[in-house]
């Protein structure tokens, strides 16, 4: 008579076998060690191309020059030259297919990012001309007097 004490063990072994079968079907085939070791490289290989395929939103200044040469040229010879077009106009995405128009943000907050005068001794920021937003023409959009593409004070309206 076989010893009955082994019976729970058979159940356990059966459950383990079942789990291994389930794993075979549920775990993606490209899951494994793909990097330097198990600690840092254990993953689904197919995820990398998924991340690489994410669409690019910001297209960069070169893509603006073709249709907007005057603005780019004006900007290039001004103090605002280092600022990317898309910083203020938002990401180009598929412009001009979609979106047809990029936002022209006239909010003062946009300019205050750099031009709100703060006490920052030792920081590059103190070398940027700044104003106190509460006292310098409050409520009026900055671009009413300053041309954002060529903001040099000599060219003020």
């Amino acid at each position, binding site marked *: *008579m076989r*010893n*009955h*004490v082994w*019976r*729970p*063990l058979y*159940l*356990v072994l059966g*459950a383990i076998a079942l*789990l291994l079968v*389930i*794993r075979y079907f*549920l*775990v993606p085939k490209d*899951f494994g060690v793909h990097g330097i070791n*198990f*600690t840092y490289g*254990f993953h689904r290989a197919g995820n990398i191309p998924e991340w690489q395929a994410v669409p690019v939103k910001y297209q960069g200044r070169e893509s603006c020059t073709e249709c907007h040469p005057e603005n780019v040229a004006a900007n290039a010879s001004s103090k605002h030259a280092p600022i990317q077009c898309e910083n203020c106009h938002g990401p180009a995405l598929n412009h001009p297919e979609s979106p047809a128009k990029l936002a022209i943000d006239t909010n003062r907050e946009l300019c205050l990012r750099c031009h709100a005068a703060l006490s920052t001794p030792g920081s590059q920021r103190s070398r940027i001309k700044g104003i106190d937003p509460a006292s310098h023409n409050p409520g009026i959009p900055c671009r009413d007097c300053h041309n954002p593409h060529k903001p040099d004070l000599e060219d003020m309206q």
Partner: protein
Amino acid sequence: MEPMIVHGLEWTSKELFVYPNEFIYWSIQIVMYPYMTGLVAGAFVLSSLYHVFDQKDLKELARFSLVFSLALLPTALMPLLFHLQQPLRGPNVMLTPHFTSAIAAFGIVFSTYAAIVLSEIWFVYREYFVAQALALRGQQGLGIAVKRLLYQALTLGAYDTSAPALAKDKKAIRILAGAGIPVACFLHGYAGFIFGSVKANALWMSPLMPVIFIMSAVVSGIALCMLTYIVIMKWQKFRAVPAKGTETAQVLGGVALEDVIGKASRYLLGFLVAAISLELLDLVFRGYTAMKSWDILRSVLYHKDFVSIFILQYGVGNLLPFALLILPRLTIRRTVLALIFILYGVFMMRWNVVIGGQAFSLSFAGFMQYHLPILPHNLDTFKEGLLGALTVAATPFVLFWLINKIVPSLKFEGGR
């Protein structure tokens, strides 16, 4: 459209400088999880005190705590399912376990422990299953047939209940109970390792964490089993008051309830002393070595969380029950009070570790405060709020009641 919820934002308030992405991400359910696994470990150790170490006075309590341990096991899964942002992917831990992570050990340890508990219960109750299956033979009725099939299945085909066969059962029980102790400790030790190995968290990072967790887990497990046992025994006695109306001492297998509880209390005290010693050691070391994080930790431990740690956890949760249990002429009533305080103290320990570890920012220049959601208004505040915690807390009792219908663990007198 899925509601956009920054997880943790609703119940976190920040003070001074906290990194923008920091919130209290591990909240009440992560407090509940080690609490429940701790109860599991403790219940099993209590049961093993009889099966392995032949503490004969604990026989009835041992059988009860073994079954209660089984009721606690699926309950331990609940806080995790409530906490996961993707609960349906929970099985991924079993499918692609990344063993460098302490949480990945969960699948293995949990399954091993479940196998041991289930096997041990099978051996303890096999004779009962066989008796039920045979007794229900030949009776009519669909309900009876279902019951009979259930018990037949539970016998696993092993109908031999002769003395040698039962002796084999007893041997198997002893071995499983013995093997189960380190597994139960591992089950909860790794929970402590989850916290202790996080070098980024200045409060959690400590080699003592797994040991502290195990000690307090055993304390809580023994305490819960004792408490539930007393409650059930008193309730049964209340229902079966003798016609004469005289109060007779509760007798179980020849041993008075008072003696059983008194014996278990001694073990409880031992583990309680061990648990608090380790915690105080950790505290003293931190203060003495005064690492970079000590300034902010000191603010949290001695100021912001002072009441929570020293008054509620150490005072009410440790010192008070210690005094109650050590004073002479211990009564059931005083024991019950002490047990409730102990269970509260162990809960506060989990709270102070999990929430306390998130009370300060990684910047060491700011604080976060946890506001437990009381009334839920969405799924998040239910799962990670008071109601979610209470649901988890109530489940083992519901499960125990269900399991008890198949595997009766309470005998008023006599029995195996």
